[in-house]
């Protein structure tokens, strides 16, 4: 995991994103326990409250579940859900930004489609 401490993305969000990505990548398998709040916070020197906030975000998204007295576990179906969420984010936010930037630079739709087609062909 890598964190951008001077960046503007809140740290708890970065914690959630990094763990989410690790789940998509299969680094933490479904049903498996993820490192504890303390483990993550001491390894990366991040306040435990921040780490917990990030983990709770993943609990809200249904990617992690708390098992009382044991810790946090990857839910079944988490990998697919995390992948879906990433796809969704790409199709809404990222593509919109991309198109807006192309418009700003005076690139029309056909030109953009051409480039995308080329990208897929290669």
């Amino acid at each position, binding site marked *: 995991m890598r964190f951008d401490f001077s960046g503007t993305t809140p740290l708890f969000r970065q914690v959630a994103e990094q763990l989410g990505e690790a789940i998509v990548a299969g680094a933490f398998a479904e049903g498996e326990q993820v490192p504890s709040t303390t483990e993550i916070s001491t390894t990366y020197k991040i306040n435990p409250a921040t780490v917990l906030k990030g983990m709770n975000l993943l609990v809200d998204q249904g990617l992690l579940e708390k098992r009382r007295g044991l810790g946090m576990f990857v839910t079944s179906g988490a990998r697919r859900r995390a992948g879906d969420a990433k796809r969704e984010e790409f199709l809404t936010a990222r593509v919109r930004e991309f198109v807006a930037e192309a418009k*700003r630079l005076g690139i029309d739709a056909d030109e953009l489609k051409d480039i995308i087609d080329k990208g897929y062909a290669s």
Partner: protein
Amino acid sequence: MNLVINDLTKIFHKGAAPALDHVNLALEPGIHGLFGRNGAGKSTLLGVMANRLLPTSGHVALDGENVRDNEHALARIYLANETTPFLMPPRVSAFLRNEGRYYGGIDAESAARMLAEFGIDTAAMYGGLSLGRRRIVRLVAALCLPVDVVLLDEPVNGLDAANRERFYRLLIESYAERPRVIVVSTHIIDEVAQVVERAVILDRGRVVDVFDAGDVASRATVLVGDDARVAAFVAAEGLQPVATERMGRLVTVTVRGGVDARDVPDGIAVSGLGLQDYFIRVTGADDARTAAGDGRISDIVDGKER
């Protein structure tokens, strides 16, 4: 467990500017960052909290008990600062034992383990250690005493980069094991930004802002773009500018609070601020300015002009 600072003022010399000026704070268990520039009053505040200095007015209460000359409350508060121990103990182990005697016993095993990480043997002669290593011994003692309030005044001064990292990790480990009120004062913010949970900003004896360290992006926003366009947007949204930089027609305006990027028209770039940058803006880069209403963010944070 809570530590409440109630309308605390400290004036060292009659007629001089107060070192602390009506400070109010409530601290719950957590790692708190106390940030301020040189002479902002950080050490004075910690000194009063530990009863090493007497306040001119106001008081500090631990769980409702005034700490002033209160042995019971003071046995629960430990301040680690620049001062050397009253009687230089011969060995590190003796220093740890002495501190334990005053503060209800020390976890000698943890202390020895932590010191070993720094390559310090408890059998070493305290006086033979370098200044940086003596400081490490005092910090380790602070973390291994069973107190409820740990005050660390500029803890990483004189520590090399590897030892600073090590210290931050031990600090978090120690806190995770036993949550309590920990206050870390420093003017080096970038390094501890992610370690602290709450940030308290002190400027010229006054608390100018207290917030969740993770929420710094919601405290101020930077807008960059064409002068006229940015000015029109700032006016239309009723935003409060706190700093403006010009370069030709390109203007960089820092405004108070968060701004939703979706509300911002094309041609204006929006970004947040890191804790360090926010701190610099809050505590005023130019010391020469004295006139009231100079638009320093600290005035606006308080909601009153000085």
